[in-house]
């Protein structure tokens, strides 16, 4: 079974992230990390490979430094990496990003595409569904568990008001939730081996896309304006002298909250 995992480099959610005036996340202000959900997707792929054989390829679209996310996937145990990298892709919206990723997926033989449910920066959760649409593959998304047997992928889809059991024949696109297994730590051997594994770089021209189709200037959705939320005024902080609970009740009553 040939598995391709989508990985993404994002600004660290433990740091203070900011938006630029054009609505893009300021990727220079905060140290980039591999989005944890995509590491869980790699882990899921590696466990499926251990059970069923085949290969695991990690795929990302991003600037030159996004190669770190691919190297981490290779160090964890993936066999090969594809880096969609082209300056003209900057500012692409989900529609354009999914077109580029779908084109990259068409360059390899793939039985199962695994993604995280949604990235911690964009949070649209659109890409896995868009890829299923573009590649005409069944979509099994928001899976808290996944199994593959006899060419059929099945799992538990975890949604707001309960769970669904879903299944489809391969090939398919799946996305996994934070309930997926914890990612393994790359060991020294894995990190050394990663350096020798194949890394393919694909440009917009390699993907057969037109430069005018991708990037922020040609995007189908546009940010009109960005306003930071105003800073909060400082409030009252007291140290409990034995009556703090009662004082808080007074405060809440004064604010008509009780």
């Amino acid at each position, binding site marked *: 079974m040939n598995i391709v995992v989508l990985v993404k480099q994002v600004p660290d959610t433990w740091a203070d992230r900011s938006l630029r005036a054009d609505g893009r996340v300021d990727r220079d202000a905060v140290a980039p990390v591999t989005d944890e959900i995509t590491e869980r997707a790699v882990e899921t792929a590696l466990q499926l490979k251990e059970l069923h054989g085949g290969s695991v390829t990690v795929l990302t679209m991003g600037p030159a430094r996004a190669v770190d996310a691919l190297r981490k996937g290779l160090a964890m145990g993936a066999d090969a990496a594809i880096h969609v990298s082209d300056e003209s892709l900057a500012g692409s919206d*989900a529609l354009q990003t999914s077109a580029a990723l779908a084109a990259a997926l068409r360059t390899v033989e793939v039985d199962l595409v695994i993604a995280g449910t949604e990235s911690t920066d964009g949070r*649209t959760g659109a890409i896995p*569904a868009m890829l299923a649409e573009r590649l005409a593959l069944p979509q099994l998304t928001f899976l808290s568990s996944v199994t593959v047997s006899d060419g059929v992928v099945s799992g538990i889809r975890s949604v707001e008001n309960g769970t669904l059991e*879903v299944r489809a024949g391969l090939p398919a696109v799946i996305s996994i939730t934070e309930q997926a297994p914890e990612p393994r730590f790359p060991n020294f051997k894995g990190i050394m081996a990663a350096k020798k594994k194949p890394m393919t770089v694909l440009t917009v021209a390699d993907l057969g896309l037109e430069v005018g189709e991708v990037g922020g200037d040609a995007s189908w959705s546009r940010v009109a304006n960005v306003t930071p939320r105003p800073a909060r005024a400082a409030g009252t902080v007291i*140290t409990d002298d034995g009556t703090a609970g009662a004082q*808080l*009740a007074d405060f809440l009553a004064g604010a008509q909250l009780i």
Partner: protein
Amino acid sequence: MGQILVLAEHTQGTLDRVTGELLAAAALLGEPAAVVVGLPGAADALLEQLAESGAHRVYVAETADAEALLVTPAVLALDAAVTAARATGEVTAVLVNASIAGRETAARLSVRLTAGLINDAVGVELIDGVVVATMQALGGAYIVQSTAVELAVVTVRPHAISGQAPAASAERVDITIDTAALPAAAITAVHAEVVARDRPDLTAASVVVSGGRGLGSRENFSLVEELADVFGAAVGASRAAVEADYCAHHMQVGQTGVTVAPQLYIALGISGAIQHRAGMQSAKTIVVINKDAGAPLFEVADFGIVGDLFTVVPQLIEAVRARQNA
């Protein structure tokens, strides 16, 4: 005036509340129309409700596969409805609930129509004939307004839109979809959440009480629930509390969890890493109780108490109950 198509959500013959919200949003942008996907005969019970909620037309796609296939029936129905609606005039936007399935439906539709996707809008308006959607980004730290080139496919956050569209005629237009035309996952079983939901939904609650690592254990976390019940509040948690398994994952408030904006947010034993703050800083009033005076969350508190939550909270519960009973 352009037509605005809304994907109707319904359960056992009754419109879900969010459908009324979507039609109210649609009325701000143009002429609202609804798209119903359901089992054969499902639309009959919905037409009157859709008329009251302001749908001028109701595009009906009935198929035996409506509940057996994941996401694709709604995608095909919206696509067919846009085609049908364009025969009678311009379509300027499609509005879908920003649920998991709704966001995926919208994503696929935007590919089919090559239309810009705007996600999780908390407001919509028409400015110079252009649909402008307002969103919160990075956990509410920014307000972003976006537009789409030509047709906009917009997912709208539930509970974000108030008001009601004026009642309309809900003229029925049947459309046909071929569910076999699109590869799809089969839904083989549905398990509705069995937990009794006597607390409000986290994203919609006017009061949220959250607990963090300071609670110390899963048993102690019940203090958070006890305080929440005094206020009729929803229960939230920090990522640290979720990772320590004090409570369920879906209760996590923060950058990697739910974003909330209640009238009152009470944080118990939460230090307030950026991770958490980003998910609750748009609350109107913030109360913080923590024994560590250096906890960063005090920086955003309207009222903060440095103290032991296991003595402060029981006293608070007693004081609030006394006022409620007075």
